């Protein structure tokens, strides 16, 4: 598929209307606030606010969600720098450099760089997304059920290999999540499975309530157990843009990290936290002064912030062109698309090509909105972190229940949210990662229906699974990523332990 320049310009014009710009800005502000509040992640933010888009026009709601996504990725840096608590997991690497800088009295410099690095990474990610996804979708148009089955297996294997400390628990989470998806009508024969005779279970697990439960309510139960305010560094935030010297100093890292971030984002399953840590590690490895890392090196801060924002552009690539989310947030976004009656994937390019380009445009504008709102509101956002938990946490629970109820006006969905909230809390407590469940909820039905379809075509012959080169490649990649995860686990564990040690050193001083 040729890249359509004309369509790109018209879609920018379409997005440049007051109502869309307004939605992008609202989303960005909400995103930054959510990202800045520790315990509220980008995944949770999008899940909580998806219900606000019910009944809006597709472009309006999607551009708002883009704003939340980009804003939250940056917002995590604010609390990372000021109260040494990453606002989102993706900002964990930012703490390592940002907090020592703030302690030195350079909070303003750190915040300015974090914002600029996020903006830079976001723009690169959005650019790569704009040019790469149409190409990938044109390849994907040739995909049959076998390829989609391979893709689903690949995505699941990646999320299992990278999430959590125990591979076995990751596997258990994934297969449990996949089993949850098999409730409801069988995709081929229509036979209702595992419904316990409950009518609401016939359609399978309600997606939005399930993930609001897993990611928001579980965090509420976690949050109420710990009380005790964080100590904020009283810093003068007098800098809005990084100095020219800082930009020049970090420029190489900015470029490298934005590419790393986009590529990692584009791999189904791997998200912003991984992108940030890998970029941070790479920056440290390539640096001429690695001994400065951990003591407030601005380059490391730039690398981590840049990578987690470029990751969002990267994660949109497989979502839009293949219908496979690139990370946990895009998995939630997929739900938002479906609510709008849009199924991401190659067919989206055939049927709604104008909307696809408008999404590109709104993603790009969200980066600019983030830079300007971030500069204008820096004082305000720094204060938001100190909101009283005793008010915030219960309010999140109420909002979760309301959001779950709103879509179908059905109390069953509220119970469902509560159930998955309790389940998510217990699983988190015992080290079972939750993201494999989220991805399984999307990839499971995709894997099953395509596998069954392929077997219908072949008349029950399993050799069809190995008849298509792309599908075989994907399945081989899936096996490789699992084998590498098993063999490399000790290495990864050592690395994690090292980073954890560094993290504890920085946070406990």
């Amino acid at each position: 598929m040729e890249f359509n320049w004309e369509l790109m310009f018209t879609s920018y014009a379409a997005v440049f209307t007051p109502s869309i710009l307004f939605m992008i800005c609202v989303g960005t502000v909400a995103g930054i606030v959510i990202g800045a509040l520790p315990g509220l992640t980008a995944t949770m933010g999008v899940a909580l606010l998806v219900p606000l888009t019910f009944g809006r026009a597709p472009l309006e709601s999607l551009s708002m969600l883009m704003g939340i996504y980009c804003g939250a990725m940056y917002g995590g840096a604010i609390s990372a720098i000021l109260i040494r608590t990453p606002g989102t997991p993706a900002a964990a690497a930012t703490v390592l450099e940002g907090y020592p800088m703030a302690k030195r009295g350079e909070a303003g410099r750190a915040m300015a760089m974090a914002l600029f690095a996020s903006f830079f990474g976001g723009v690169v990610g959005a650019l790569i997304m704009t040019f790469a996804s149409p190409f990938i979708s044109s390849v994907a148009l040739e995909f049959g059920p076998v390829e989609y089955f391979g893709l689903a297996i690949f995505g699941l294997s990646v999320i299992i290999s990278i999430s959590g400390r125990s591979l076995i628990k990751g596997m258990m989470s994934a297969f449990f999540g996949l089993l949850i998806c098999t409730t409801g009508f069988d995709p081929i024969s229509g036979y209702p499975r595992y419904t316990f005779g409950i009518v609401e279970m016939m359609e399978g697990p309600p997606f939005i309530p399930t993930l609001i439960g897993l990611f928001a309510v579980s965090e509420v139960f976690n949050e109420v157990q710990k009380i005790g305010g964080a100590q904020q560094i009283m810093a003068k935030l007098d800098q809005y843009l990084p100095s020219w010297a800082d930009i020049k100093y970090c420029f190489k890292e900015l470029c490298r990290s934005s590419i790393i971030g986009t590529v990692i984002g584009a791999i189904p399953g791997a998200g912003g936290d991984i992108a940030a840590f890998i970029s941070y590690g790479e920056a440290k490895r390539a640096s001429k002064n690695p001994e400065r890392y951990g003591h407030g090196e601005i380059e490391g801060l730039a690398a981590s912030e840049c990578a987690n924002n470029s990751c969002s552009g990267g994660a949109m690539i497989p979502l839009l062109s293949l219908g496979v989310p690139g990370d946990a947030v895009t998995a939630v976004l997929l739900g938002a698309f479906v609510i709008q009656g849009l199924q991401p994937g190659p067919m989206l390019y055939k049927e709604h090509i104008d909307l696809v380009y408008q999404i590109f445009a709104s993603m790009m504008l969200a980066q600019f909105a983030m830079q300007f709102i971030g500069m204008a509101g820096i004082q305000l956002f720094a204060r938001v972190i100190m909101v009283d938990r005793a008010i915030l946490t219960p309010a999140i629970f109420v909002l979760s229940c309301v959001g779950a109820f709103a879509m179908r006006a059905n109390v069953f969905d509220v119970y469902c949210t509560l159930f998955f909230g309790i389940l998510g809390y217990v699983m988190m407590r015992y080290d079972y990662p939750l993201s494999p469940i989220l991805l399984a909820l999307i990839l499971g039905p995709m894997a099953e229906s395509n596998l069954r379809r392929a077997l219908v075509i072949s008349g029950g012959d399993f050799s069809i699974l190995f008849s298509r080169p792309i599908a075989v490649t994907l399945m081989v990649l899936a096996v490789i990523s699992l084998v590498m995860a098993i063999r490399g686990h000790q290495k990864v564990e050592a690395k994690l332990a090292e980073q954890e040690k560094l993290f504890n050193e920085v946070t406990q001083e």
Partner: protein
Amino acid sequence: MKKADIIGGLIGILIGLYAIWEGSNMPEDVVMKIGPSFFPTILASLLIIFSLVLIVNALRGKSKGEVTPLKLSDKGVQRGLITLVAAIVFCIALDPIGFIPTAIVFLACMMWVMGNRKPMLMIVVPPLITLSIWLIFEKVLNLSMPAGLLIDIL
């Protein structure tokens, strides 16, 4: 973590066995030999296998990570349990009693549980949050909230 892993593994096995048992009652496709139970059965078997691995590892003393034991005397655990009960009551009461009263009471209780007990705040904040959520969903987004007891007024 050892005990927790063994229990976790047993739960995994039970879920898997249930899925297989339930699957065995499903009709089979005569032509294809692959019916609705085909995919869940594979998944359940894999879940059981990994649960077994987890148990074996735990028995061999290879469990990873640590978990702080739950003690009832711990203030945090007490708050967690109270929250759990409050959350369940909130969800049950939501439909019959209605969103506005339930949410106000829930928020006030939780503020008290979490240690913000300034009377002024406890009177002002819960209704404020509840009303703003209600206004956004009911009036701006036109999504209906459970009206409950207030059905005649709203």
